[in-house]
């Protein structure tokens, strides 16, 4: 069943004459892992932001269905509650807000939406320890303020840690692999693989084929100028690694001519 269905999505920037997405089509089935690659500025993060409900973007045309529902009708926090998770390309610092407080509110808000009981403090802390362990996240980080003073890699790991805590149905990873050292990449990939099951879906935005060796995608899409210019299986990532994007651009141009 389609977990996510994007049809002819056109997106601009609110109140400005800028168009970023020019008719994106993409279907992700439950249990699927798709990778999105593509040059800088092609619209990958914009797509992720629109899925998460960022207000500065305006949907000009097209629609998005998530689990059969009209996703665009939902507020960002409702989407989160329904199981949409975005691991940010640039995670934000929340000075003075403790990780524990933040995650507890977050987890409980999502649990409540799912009709689950609030976790007790003990259960919650236990879960935090387990997941941090699983991802090789330094337990000290979970005692600090959210992302405040975290290194680039620590911030990325922290995103995956939150993903593990929230157990979303649709996880979008926006360049989570960039800036991770080799060990971190492995533990992040392991974490993602552990969460992979028949009911969840993953959209992994990346510039590097490397991570796709650990979390093997069912499909690879190439975003160019706000469209999916080409889709293929995992071999496509390999091809891009070797030849870059120019050949796809040429092919698209040739097809259009």
């Amino acid at each position, binding site marked *: 069943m389609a977990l996510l269905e994007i049809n002819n999505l056109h997106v601009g920037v609110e109140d400005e004459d800028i168009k970023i997405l020019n008719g994106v089509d993409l279907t992700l089935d439950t249990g699927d892992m798709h990778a999105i690659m593509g040059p800088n500025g092609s619209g990958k993060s914009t797509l992720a932001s629109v899925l*998460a*409900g*960022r*207000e*500065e973007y305006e949907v000009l045309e097209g629609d998005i269905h998530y689990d059969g529902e009209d996703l665009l009708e939902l*507020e*960002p*926090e409702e*989407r*989160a*509650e329904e199981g949409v*998770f*975005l691991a*940010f390309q640039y*995670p*934000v610092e*929340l*000075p*003075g*807000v*403790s990780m524990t*407080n*933040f*995650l507890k*509110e*977050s987890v409980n*808000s*999502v649990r409540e*939406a799912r009709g689950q009981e609030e976790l007790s403090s003990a259960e919650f802390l236990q879960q935090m320890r387990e997941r941090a362990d699983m991802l090789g996240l330094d337990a000290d980080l979970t005692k600090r*303020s959210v992302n405040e003073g975290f290194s680039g890699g620590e911030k990325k790991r922290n995103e995956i840690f*939150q993903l593990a805590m*929230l157990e979303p149905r649709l996880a979008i990873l926006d360049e989570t692999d960039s800036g991770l050292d080799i060990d971190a990449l492995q533990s992040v990939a392991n974490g993602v693989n552990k969460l992979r099951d028949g009911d969840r879906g993953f959209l992994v935005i990346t510039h590097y084929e490397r991570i796709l060796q650990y979390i093997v995608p069912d499909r690879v899409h190439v975003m160019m100028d706000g469209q999916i210019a080409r889709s293929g299986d995992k071999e496509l990532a390999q091809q891009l690694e070797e030849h870059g994007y120019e050949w796809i651009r040429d092919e698209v141009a040739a097809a259009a001519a």
Partner: protein
Amino acid sequence: MSTSETEYLKGKASEDYKHGFYTDIEAETAPDGLTEDVVRYISHRKDEPEWLLNWRLKAFRHVRDRIDGGESIDWAHLDYEAPKFDEISYFSAPKEKANYDSLDEVPDEILETFERLGIPLEEQKALTGVAVDAVMDSVSVATTFKEKLEEKGVIFKSFGEAAREHPEIVREHMGTVIPYTDNLYAALNSAVFSDGSFVYVPEGVTCPMELSTYFRINEAGTGQFERTLIVAEPGAYVSYLEGCTAPMRKENQLHAAVVELIAHEDAEIKYSTIQNWYPGDPDTGEGGVYNLVTKRGLCKGDNSKISWTQLETGSAVTQKYPSVILAGDNSVGEFYSVAFTKGHQQADTGTKMQHIGKNTKSTIISKGISADVADNSYRGQVKVSKNAENARNFSQCDSMLLGPDCGAHTYPYIESSAPSAQVEHEATTSKVGEDQMFYCHQRGLGEEEALKLIVNGFCQEVLQELPMEFAVEAKELLDIELEGSVG
């Protein structure tokens, strides 16, 4: 002291308060205006010793001259009409009669907040001054509480009681940190002060509990000119809590309190305040309290320490600068403040750290938050005298704006005459970022939850300085204040 015990005492103490021990002195009000007769009347009514009357009279002559000279305070970033000193009534005895006949007369905003804070109905009545008819025997609790303190030799009394029962200690210290000549409102307070608290902690004694005005027995309406004096003898420690999270509607618009702290050698005084007085009508600001307070601590002995921590959310106009005079060598002064203004509230707050002794150290952390059309100013002075070798100060003043129409201002004044001094000042102004809000939303948090989290985070450095239970209340209060500030 366990939380439940504290809760219990709080409840009990406030019950005492509402029933009052004052049945025999049904209210009488002095004639309006500031005259020598009024000062004599106040002193007489309070059964004060001669020396205290004379002290008041000296202050009275001084303040009368200043008012007649046309003095007003116009340097602060505040816009309000100066009080008409000759139209104020300076004395009203504690009344058995309540401000309201029933809770129905209490403004809705206040009742809603009570609801949120989970304050029991009876206590709500006490706080708003609604007549209560339940009778309870709480004398035994009060006595246990008093016994505990007496065992250690700690004196915790109303100012008036202390002046009668411990004249030598009160006389020796009062007015030594804030002389009656200090400023207009302090002078006014010195002449006509109503009542307040007196705390004395003897040498080497750590006060066995947090002292809160909640617990003070026999506290009747301390009136608009509260006066507090805390003395910590060498090696003593005391933590004092003033105010409460419940919104307080005051009878009088003008409140000019004086708080003096004296820490002798190796002594430490921690003074925490939560102020949530009625800010006035949210749309017009009408009827709100003017809170014009002079608070100052003297680190008299070497290695002494005084810290002020405050959460200011109430009043229409707040003007206060809790300060520390660092006279003793190695003494430490701290100021941690959160001032939240919304609606039409105005706050001009800050501190003054005066370094006199060697190796003295001061820390200032100030967080100002404004919403709606409120105005919030920080005014801080760090003064290092010539002999204050190696004095160090660190100041950090952060402002957060929750909308386009509110204001934040920072006025740091630094004056250093000691070449070896290190003075550091940092200031930031921020809006709650779209990015931060979106990040929170993406994790399932709604508008209000997200804002609460971010603002609480912003204040964290200050809130963590509050005693535990006070901190929990403070957080809850901030949350309530933020409700309706979203958007």
